[in-house]
C-alpha cells in the first residue's frame, strides 16, 4: 500500500513531466517552424526570381544565336524539346513562352500540374521583335521551405525521444530514487527494525526529512548492525546505456562513405568488399566480446567493466576521428566493437544483479528499449551532424557522448551486490549441443542468420553508399535508416507479447521474413530513395514481427538441447550465432554490389531472406519436435 504507492511516485512525476514538457515543446517548436518558413520565404523569393531571370537570359541568347544564323524567328526548329529541357531543369518554372512583338505565343511549354499563382519574368530578344516569357511558381520558395517543417517535425520527434529518456532520469535522480529509499526504510523501521538507514543524501525538504529520520534511527542505539539502504532501479541503467548506444549509432548513416574516403587497396578484396570489412569486423568483435566478456563481469563487476568498455570505445572513436587510411581505421573500429560489447554486457549484468528472476525479463526490456530508442535518435542526429560538422567531427561527438555515459553510470550496484552464479557448462559444449539440434539449427540458419544478413547489409552498408551515390545528404540517409528502428523501438514488446500469448511463433517468423524479403525484392522496380524507404520500412516491420518470435521458436524447437545447456546460455548463443549473418552481411553485400549493382543486390538479399523464411516450416516439419513450433 503506502510503500508501493510511494515507490511509484517518482515514475508518476516523471511521466507527468514528460507529458507536460512534450506538449509545451511541441507548441513552441511548431511556432518556431512556422515563423522560420514565413521569414525565409521573404528572402528566398527574390533569389528564385534572380535565377529565373538568368534562365530567361540564357534562353534569349540561344534563340538570338539561332536567329543570327539566318533562321526566321517563327520557323525555329526543335523548340519543343529545347523548352522542355529548360523546364525540366528548372523546377521553379511553371511555363515558358516565346512571343512575338504582338504578344502572340509562337512556342510554349508548360510543366505538368497546376500552379496556384505565378509571377512573370520577361526577357526581350535582341535578334527579333519578341520576348521570352517565364511563369515562375509563386509558391516554389514556400514549397522548398516546407522541407523545413518536415525537418522540424523529425528533429522535434528525436528531441522528444531524447527528452523522454533524460527526464525520467532527472526526476528519479532528484526525487524518485530517494523517495523509494525513504519509503523502504520508514516501512522497515515501522516493523521495529531500526538497523537500516537511508543511504541517499538530499537537500531541501526531502533532505531535512531524511536527516531527521536517520537521527531518530540513530537514537535507537545499536550502531554495530547499521546497514545503509540505497534504492536502485533498472531504469538507472537506461540513460548511460542510451547515451552510449547513441554515441555508437551516430556514425551509422555515413560510416561506409567515410571508409570509402579512406580506402586503400587491400590484397584479395574488391573495393566494395573492403568498404564492408570494417563493418563486418565490428560485428565479429561484438560477437566475440559478447561470448568472452561474461568472465570479466564475474571477476571485476559491472561498474568496472562498463568503465573499461567506455574507455576502449572512446579510444576507438578518437582513432576513427583521426584515421589516416583503412588499415588504422580497422583497428579503431575493432576497439569500438570491443568497447561496445563490454559496455552492453556490463549494463545487462547490472540489471541482472539488481533484479530477481521474476522481474528480470521486464527489467531487460528497459535495456532493449534504450538501445532501440538510441538507434532511432543516433541515426537521425548523426546524419544531421555529419552535414554540419563533417564525418570526423561526428566521431568527436561520439567520443564526448561515450565519456558522458561514464558519468551517468551508477557507481554501485545497490545494497546487496550479488555475483551471479557462473554457469557450469563450457562455451564449446553449449555451441556443440545446440548446433547438433536440427530444429534449433534450422531456426538459426533459415531465420535468425538471414535476418541479420539483410539487416547489416542494408542498414549499415548499402543504404549509406547507395543514397550517397544518388547525391542524397547524410541527414536524408539518417532519416531513412530511422525507418528501420521505429517499429523496432515502439512495437517490439507488443509483438513479443503476441508471440507468447497466441503461440504464433512460426507464423510470425515466416511472416516477418516474407515482409522483409518482399520489401527488398521490390528495389529494382522502385529505384532510388523510394526503394530504400520501402526496403527499410519492410525490414523494420518484418523484424519487429520476427525477432522475439525467432528466440521463442528456437527455444521451443530445440527444447531438449536448451534444457541441457540452460536457457540463459541458449539465449546468449542465439545472440552470438545470429551475428554470423551480421558479419557476412556487409561482405556479401559489397561483393554483390560490385557484380550486380545496388538495386539487384538488395533484391538478391531480399530473395535469400524470403526463400529461407518459406523453407523454414518444411525444415521444422522434418524435425522430431517440429510440432513444438
Amino acid at each position, binding site marked *: *500500500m*503506502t*510503500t508501493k504507492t*510511494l*515507490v511509484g*511516485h517518482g515514475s508518476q*512525476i516523471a511521466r*507527468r*513531466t514528460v507529458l*507536460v*514538457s512534450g506538449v*509545451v*515543446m511541441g507548441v513552441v*517548436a511548431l*511556432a*518556431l517552424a512556422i*515563423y*522560420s518558413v514565413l*521569414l525565409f520565404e521573404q*528572402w*528566398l523569393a527574390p*533569389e528564385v526570381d*534572380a*535565377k529565373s531571370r538568368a534562365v530567361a*537570359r*540564357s534562353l534569349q541568347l540561344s534563340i538570338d544565336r539561332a536567329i543570327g544564323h539566318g533562321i526566321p524567328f517563327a520557323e525555329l526548329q526543335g523548340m519543343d524539346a529545347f523548352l522542355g529541357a529548360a523546364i525540366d531543369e528548372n523546377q521553379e518554372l511553371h511555363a515558358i513562352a516565346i512571343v512575338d512583338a504582338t504578344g502572340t505565343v509562337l512556342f510554349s511549354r508548360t510543366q505538368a500540374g497546376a500552379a496556384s499563382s505565378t509571377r512573370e519574368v520577361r526577357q526581350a530578344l535582341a535578334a527579333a521583335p519578341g520576348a521570352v516569357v517565364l511563369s515562375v511558381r509563386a509558391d516554389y520558395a514556400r514549397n522548398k*521551405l516546407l522541407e*523545413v517543417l518536415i*525537418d*522540424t517535425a523529425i*528533429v522535434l520527434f528525436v*528531441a522528444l525521444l531524447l*527528452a523522454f529518456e*533524460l527526464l525520467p532520469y532527472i526526476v528519479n535522480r*532528484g*526525487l524518485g530514487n530517494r*523517495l523509494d529509499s525513504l*519509503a*523502504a*526504510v*520508514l*516501512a*522497515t*523501521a*515501522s*516493523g*521495529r527494525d531500526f538497523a537500516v538507514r537511508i543511504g541517499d543524501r538530499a*537537500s*531541501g*525538504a526531502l533532505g*531535512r*526529512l531524511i536527516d*531527521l529520520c536517520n537521527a*531518530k*534511527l540513530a537514537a535507537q542505539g545499536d550502531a554495530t548492525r547499521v546497514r545503509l*539502504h540505497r534504492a*536502485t532501479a533498472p531504469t538507472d541503467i537506461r540513460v548511460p546505456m542510451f547515451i552510449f548506444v547513441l554515441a555508437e549509432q551516430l556514425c551509422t548513416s555515413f560510416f561506409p562513405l567515410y571508409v570509402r574516403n579512406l580506402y586503400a587497396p587491400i590484397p584479395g578484396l574488391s573495393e566494395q568488399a573492403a568498404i564492408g570489412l570494417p563493418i563486418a569486423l565490428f560485428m565479429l568483435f561484438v560477437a566475440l566480446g559478447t561470448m568472452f566478456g561474461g568472465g570479466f563481469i564475474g571477476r571485476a563487476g559491472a561498474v568496472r567493466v562498463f568503465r573499461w568498455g567506455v574507455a576502449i570505445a572512446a579510444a576507438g572513436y578518437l582513432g576513427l576521428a583521426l584515421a589516416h587510411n583503412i588499415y588504422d581505421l580497422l583497428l579503431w573500429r575493432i576497439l569500438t566493437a570491443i568497447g561496445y560489447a563490454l559496455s552492453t554486457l556490463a549494463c545487462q549484468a547490472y540489471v541482472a544483479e539488481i*533484479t530477481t528472476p521474476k522481474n528480470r525479463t521486464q527489467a531487460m526490456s528497459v535495456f532493449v528499449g534504450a538501445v532501440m530508442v538510441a538507434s532511432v535518435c543516433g541515426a537521425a542526429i548523426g546524419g544531421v551532424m555529419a552535414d554540419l560538422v563533417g564525418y570526423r567531427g561526428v566521431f568527436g561527438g561520439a567520443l564526448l557522448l561515450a565519456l558522458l555515459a561514464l558519468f551517468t553510470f551508477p557507481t554501485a550496484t*545497490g*545494497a546487496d551486490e550479488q555475483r551471479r552464479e557462473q554457469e557450469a557448462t563450457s562455451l564449446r559444449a553449449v555451441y556443440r549441443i545446440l548446433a547438433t539440434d536440427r530444429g534449433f539449427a534450422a531456426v538459426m540458419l533459415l531465420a535468425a542468420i538471414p535476418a541479420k544478413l539483410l539487416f547489416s547489409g542494408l542498414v549499415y552498408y548499402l543504404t549509406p553508399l547507395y543514397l550517397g551515390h544518388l547525391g542524397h545528404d547524410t541527414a536524408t540517409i539518417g532519416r531513412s535508416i530511422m525507418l528501420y528502428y521505429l517499429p523496432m523501438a515502439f512495437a517490439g514488446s507488443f509483438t513479443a507479447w503476441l508471440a507468447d500469448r497466441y503461440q504464433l511463433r512460426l507464423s510470425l517468423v515466416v511472416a516477418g521474413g516474407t515482409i522483409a524479403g518482399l520489401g527488398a525484392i521490390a528495389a529494382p522496380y522502385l529505384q532510388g530513395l523510394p526503394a530504400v524507404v520501402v526496403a527499410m520500412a519492410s525490414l523494420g516491420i518484418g523484424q519487429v514481427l520476427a525477432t522475439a518470435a525467432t528466440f521463442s521458436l528456437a527455444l521451443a524447437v530445440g527444447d531438449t538441447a536448451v534444457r541441457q545447456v540452460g536457457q540463459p546460455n541458449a539465449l546468449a548463443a542465439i545472440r552470438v550465432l545470429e551475428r554470423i549473418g551480421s558479419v557476412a552481411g556487409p561482405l556479401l553485400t559489397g561483393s554483390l554490389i560490385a557484380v550486380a549493382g545496388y538495386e539487384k543486390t538488395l533484391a538478391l538479399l531480399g530473395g535469400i531472406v524470403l526463400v529461407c523464411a518459406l523453407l523454414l516450416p518444411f525444415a521444422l516439419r522434418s524435425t522430431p519436435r517440429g510440432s513444438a513450433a
Partner: protein
Amino acid sequence: MRLSWKIGGPTCAVLVFSLCLLGFLNVHKFEQLLDGLATARVRVTAADSKAAIEQSLALGLPLADLQNIQSAIDRARSFDAEIVAVLVVDLDQARGEILYASGPGPTRVPAPWQALQARAGHGGWHHLDASGHLLMGWPLIDPLDRVVGMLVFDVLRQRHAAMIDDAAAHLARVVAALSLVLAAATAIAMWRLLAPVERSLERAALIVAGDDSTAPQSDIERLALDFRHAVDGTAPPDASRAAEPSQA
C-alpha cells in the same frame, strides 16, 4: 534547493537546448537553400559561356587561339553582379596558365592544374574558399572529348553571408523569446507538479519531529506517522504496513 528548481532546472535546460538545436538547424536549412539557388543561377550563366567556348573549340583551334572567349566571359560577368571574375585556365598546352580573365578577381589559378584536371573528371565542381569566395568550375571539352581547359567562376558570397547572418540573428531573437516562454511554462508546470510533494515532505518532517497538530494527508505523511510511533514506542505499528526494503 527546492525540488521544483532541482528537477525543473535540468528539464528546462533539456527543452531549451532542443529549441536552440531546432533554430540552428532551420538556419542551416536556409543556408543550404540559398546556396542551392545561387549556384543554380551561376550554373545557368556558366553553361552559356561553356557552350559558346566549346562551339568555338569545334573549329579545331587550340584554346589559346580562340578570339571570342574574352567577349563571352566578359558578357557572363556583366550579367550577374555577384560574379566577380571569370577565368579560362589551360589544361592542355600551357598547363595551369590563365589564358583569359575577366574582372578583378584572382589572378592566380585556384588550384594546381593536376588538381583541376582531376576535378574535371568529375564534371562541374565548387569550392568555398577561406575569404568567402565561391569558386565554381566546369571542364572545357574539345571535339575529340579531351579536357583542354577549365572555366572558373569566382562568385562573391558576401551578400548571402549577410543574409544568413541576418536570418541567424532574427531566429536567435525568436528562439530567445520562445526559450523564455518555455522556461516560464516549465517552471509553472514543475511548481504545480512538485509543490504538493514538497509540502507533503515538510509536513512529514514535522510529524517525525513530533508535531501532533499535523494530520497526515498523504502516503508519505502516514508512513512518517507510523515511523514516529515505532521509534517512540508510543503505539504498536500496523503490522500490515511493515515491509521489506524494496529492490525495485
